[in-house]
């Protein structure tokens, strides 16, 4: 995941996070259980992806930004990116 999130969730740094396969929403909830508040950074209060956040499963961008139903397979990797701008 983007290293910027480690500032807020240092407990995740240097970890290779392994959670059960499932929907993107389920994977993020599993990470939130390890680092409470994590999904508040990724998702808005309706559970949709925040505007400046992108997710991909391996090399494929997550399509369903609203309900996060895309499936992360057993051997898949979920990547978390952010857009950076401003000065």
């Amino acid at each position, binding site marked *: 995941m983007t290293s*910027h999130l480690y500032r*807020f969730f240092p407990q995740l740094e240097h970890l290779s996070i392994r959670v059960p396969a499932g929907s993107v929403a389920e994977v993020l909830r599993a990470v939130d259980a390890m680092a409470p*508040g994590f999904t*508040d*950074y990724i998702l808005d*209060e*309706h559970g949709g992806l*925040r505007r400046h956040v992108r997710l991909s499963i391996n090399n494929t961008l997550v399509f369903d930004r609203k309900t996060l139903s895309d499936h992360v397979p057993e051997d898949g990797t979920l990547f978390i990116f*952010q*857009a950076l701008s401003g000065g």
Partner: protein
Amino acid sequence: MPTTLLLGTRKGTVIIERKNGRWQPRSILHAGIPVCYAARDPRDGTLWSSLDHGHWGPKLSRSRDNGASWEEVLSLKYPKGARHIVQYMPTPDFDPMAPAGQPEYKDAAVYKIWNIAFGAESQPGRLYAGTIPGGLFISDDGGDTWELNRPLWNHESRGGDLFNGDATSENHWSGTPASVDYGVFEPGIHSIVVDPRDPNHLYVAVSSAGVLESCDGGHTWAVRNKGMRNDYMPDPEAEWGHDPHFVTACPGQPDHLWQQNHCGVFYSENGAKTWKKVSQTDAGVHFGFPIAVDANDGRCAWVVPARADSERMSIDGGLFVARTGDGGQTWQTLRKGLPQQHAYDIVYRHALDAAGDCVCFGSTTGNVYLSEDRGDSWQSLGNHFPPVYSVRFG
């Protein structure tokens, strides 16, 4: 004399402390994160910063050890079913008199936590927060949990109770350009006033709608824009549609309220029942964002005038503060110690404060100026701060 200043800046929270007669900034806190508002709860000393993360959503951060450590509060969220009528940025061919089309609805999400206010001494743990898109949130446990004030959210001036269906009345709340950075054009609550005599007596100010008052702790709200002028609208004296930039009241005389908008400085001495325009254009007192009032004398206020809403900078390159001591009948311009050549500063709505004889403001140019004699003379506290969004003594 106050001994601490809190700045909300584009790059973090800055605490400036007065020690041995000198004001010294500490190292920046929340480094790199925009902070749109920072203030200290005078009841228990807790510091609050409103983090305006561009990417991760707005968050509140609090410190109970004077800034040594901070914790994030993640619970300020709209409840399921909270909706609002979508606003669109007016285009050049926008006709405000054209019949409104069918309203479009949107599930509410917090874009910005614009203001934090504190309850009375008799209400430990009571906090208020104003948001874009126009939510007033209340906490009674020191900020651990927050609840949307539904009577204001469901007010008839916003279309009524949209939790339970479509609009039942006309929406009079419009957007604020301060929301455009978030890709929307929605209203925002930037001012919350708690009457020290009666903590159930509240005012909020909304860009763009105007001022609303509650006399029953937020159960009911009433419009308080009588006497306001909105010169650029077809009906300048319309009940709604005003854009107060900031509203504040004198703690010692809470019926004395002040605001400044695009069309002048306005003063009320009767608890916002009526407002009167008290600008003095020949002294430059007309357009600007922030306004501060003396803690004890409701007739005494300060503004930092700017050239015009279309030219947001100092007037003629000279930065000055204007002060009135007679309810706006006359204004005195105060320039001693402030740059008078090639200054183009603009001061945002929360970036001027007064406490005792001290007055302080910060500009988006990164300049912070302080007066310890009610504005008669000024000293610079620094010229290389990040753009300053808020200044509060505390």
